[in-house]
């Protein structure tokens, strides 16, 4: 098992004092689903947004520690952030399709990267839609506005949009929180396929989803990593009392 991401003593505090991380250390294995779960405000989203440096857009008061992806410290201010974001794709809680056609949503990132060849773009559209299990539903209407899709389809389009850039890591921040059970099932099924190729970090919207999807699971509470182990172990025999209380529904 190769460690794709190594997080060392990561601490972070936002300027408005809302969410924070305290001394989080974690290794994320490649080609598996690692789940970050816990009650709201625990720092899961913050950690995700560190991994593609999206926190650069937010006012951060203080941060320390290192995040190594393939051995490179991505918190180093001198790294190529654009290249990092192409390598680390992200899907947000609310599906945000860009105000353009389905095809344009998928080719947007590639075009920003300078890809102009029609054949390459078409190839990426088909490949990413198939990976996100959306191809069969939209292949005859790629030029339609993306907003015309249903919520579940929009979220899979967002997933496909990240995949079109051929990332190595995919971050999913409660990707199914607004979806019905059938759409949620489709997204989860897509993840099972995707982990053969990609390193996936998922913030699930429920403990049940965490238990269903996790190869590895990390339990966060108020900015602290409480427990981290293989999913099977963590959800059946947690070591920490706080973890057990949370997964058995005693708080949260």
């Amino acid at each position, binding site marked *: 098992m190769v460690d794709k991401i190594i997080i060392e003593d990561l601490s972070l505090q936002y300027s408005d004092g809302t969410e924070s991380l305290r001394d989080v250390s974690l290794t994320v294995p490649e080609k598996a689903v690692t789940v970050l779960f816990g009650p709201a405000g625990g720092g899961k989203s913050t950690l995700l947004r560190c991994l593609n440096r999206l926190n650069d857009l937010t006012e951060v008061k203080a941060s320390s520690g290192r995040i190594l992806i393939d051995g490179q410290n991505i918190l180093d201010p001198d790294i190529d952030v*654009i290249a990092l974001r192409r390598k680390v794709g992200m899907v947000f809680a609310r599906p*945000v399709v860009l*105000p353009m056609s389905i095809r344009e949503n998928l080719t947007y990132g590639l075009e*920003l990267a300078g890809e102009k060849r029609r054949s390459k773009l078409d190839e990426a559209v088909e490949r990413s839609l198939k990976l996100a299990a959306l191809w069969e539903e939209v292949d005859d209407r790629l030029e339609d506005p*993306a907003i015309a899709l249903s919520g579940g389809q929009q979220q899979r389009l967002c997933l496909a949009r*990240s995949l079109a850039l051929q990332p190595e890591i995919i971050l999913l921040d409660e990707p199914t929180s607004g979806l019905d059970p059938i759409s949620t099932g489709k997204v989860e099924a897509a993840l099972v396929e995707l982990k053969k190729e990609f390193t996936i970090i998922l913030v699930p919207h429920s403990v049940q989803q965490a238990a269903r999807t996790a190869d590895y699971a990390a339990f966060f509470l108020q900015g602290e990593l409480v427990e981290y182990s293989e999913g099977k172990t963590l959800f059946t025999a947690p070591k920490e009392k706080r973890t057990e209380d949370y997964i058995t529904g005693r708080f949260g």
Partner: protein
Amino acid sequence: MRRAFSLNRHLAQRLGFTFITLMAIATVLPIVATVIYILVKGAPAISLEFLTGFPHDGMRAGGILPAIIGTLYLTIGTAIFSVPLGIAAAIYLSEYAADTPLTRTIRIAIINLAGIPSVVYGLFGLGLFVLFLNFGTSILAASLTLSIMTLPVIISTAEESLRAVPQAFRTVSISLGGTRWQTIRRIVLKEALPGILTGVILGLERAAGETAPILFTGAAFFLPRLPGSPFDATMALPYHLFVISTQVPEMPIQIQYGTALVLLVFVLTMNLIATVIRSRARARRQW
């Protein structure tokens, strides 16, 4: 007792509604009345010769072509200076500037700029463009003066339109490896464009109808020919209207109203274009 009370309440409600409706009608009435009055009084003056001919007999006869062309030139000149500058300033304020004392000062300055009387802009233009920069009484000096007056309108409407574009689009674009500028150019500006255009047109429309700022900076009482370069003075519809209404004795009233009608149509057409752009964009908007 109870019944009477509820009747009273109904009556009060009815009266209230009637009052508000009347007030709403009252606000529209003067505008409609003005337009109809000018239309009725001015329409008989409109002819091909009036629109395409030069004034003669001390402007008491003939057409108003030089004034129409002049206003067109001034509007275009104003657009050339104020549109790029205004949009650039709006992009800076909305997309790049942090909330610092400097940007707050800029914002306050813009708001105050909008409140300055237009004749003050005229005097400022006279001092800066006509005299100090030695542009003379010219289309250039007048356009620059009108631009300064128009800028606050363009900046504030453009900034508002840019800010209305959902933040989530920016986040998504950045997360897909977009730079800030790529995000602005491909998404934010594209989505804000109808709103920006509306502001631009409304700003230019005001510039087209203003008299005071061009009075000292570029407007001519009478010119026997069309202006040949940006350094020439020009006739313009609003100033021409002022001249023929107050400065020329025995002026046929018809020509005055005809000129007013042409100016009104010019400005209302721009307004209509802005309205069409806005409503079409609203129908097409995907957020």
